């Protein structure tokens, strides 16, 4: 049973977040270890494994990047542990400029940081839309390229978050 089947969801990129969370809570309740405390070892073990699987599935399905990667894997293209490098010079130059920008921000740049954050979030949304379309069209390699780019964008978002914590908390 794959993660989508486990959550009774169609195996597509766009997921209903509310339904996902609700199903997660229902499944966790259903397989909670406390409910199996009086059962034999093998039943308890199975319930625990199920509970772990439910957790893994939820972590994968709620994250757009992991979800796309998982859908690729179901279609036979596994990029999860790949070690290849990306050599798209234009894209990487832009990444480099953005990282420099983040490094140069100071506590006086609160508004600029906010604007930058919005700009990056919009680009992340754009990439997610492209991923959805490429997956629907079954263009696996194209999807993989977008997913790889998404990882750099998500890293940028983490960097912005860390910067904000450092400057304003």
């Amino acid at each position, binding site marked *: 049973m794959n993660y989508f089947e486990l959550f009774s969801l169609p195996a597509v990129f766009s997921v209903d977040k509310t339904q996902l969370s609700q199903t997660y809570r229902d499944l966790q309740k259903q397989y909670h270890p406390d409910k199996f405390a009086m059962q034999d070892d093998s039943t308890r073990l199975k319930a625990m494994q199920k509970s772990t699987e439910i957790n893994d599935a939820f972590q994968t399905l709620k994250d757009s990047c992991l979800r796309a990667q998982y859908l690729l894997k179901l279609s036979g293209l596994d*990029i999860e*542990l*790949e070690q*290849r490098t*990306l050599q798209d010079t234009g894209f*990487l130059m832009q990444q480099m400029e953005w990282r420099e920008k983040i490094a140069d921000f100071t506590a006086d740049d609160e508004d600029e940081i906010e604007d930058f954050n919005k700009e990056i979030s919009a680009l992340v949304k754009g990439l997610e839309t492209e991923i959805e379309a490429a997956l629907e069209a079954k263009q696996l390699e194209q999807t993989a390229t977008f997913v790889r780019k998404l990882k750099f964008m998500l890293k940028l978002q*983490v960097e912005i978050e860390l910067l904000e914590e450092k400057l304003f908390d």
Partner: protein
Amino acid sequence: MAYSEKVIDHYENPRNVGSFDKDDKSVATGMVGAPACGDVMKLQLKIDANGIIEDAKFKTYGCGSAIASSSLVTEWVKGKSLEDAAKISNTDISAELALPPVKIHCSILAEDAIKAAIEDYKSKNA
């Protein structure tokens, strides 16, 4: 995870950080990124009239291992011909820095940066 002493040394005292003018014909620029961790690396080589790498600079946004790998590579390539520089492999880099398996992609990134720079130089001077 513990970093080796060599990684810490390069991380705390990175060699040859900076940039050359990428439009200069004697400058080779290699831009590479690792999707696994979102690290970005720029390696630039300054090549003399005899095809020898006279200087190298890098700029890396990434973890300690990625910074150490690129810093080490700038030291190694100096004085080498492009042909010899292309022979530097990720296994040389990861062995020198004692990188753990989960950080091997950092040394692959540095190796690919050299190769990308050489490609850039060839296409510029073709």
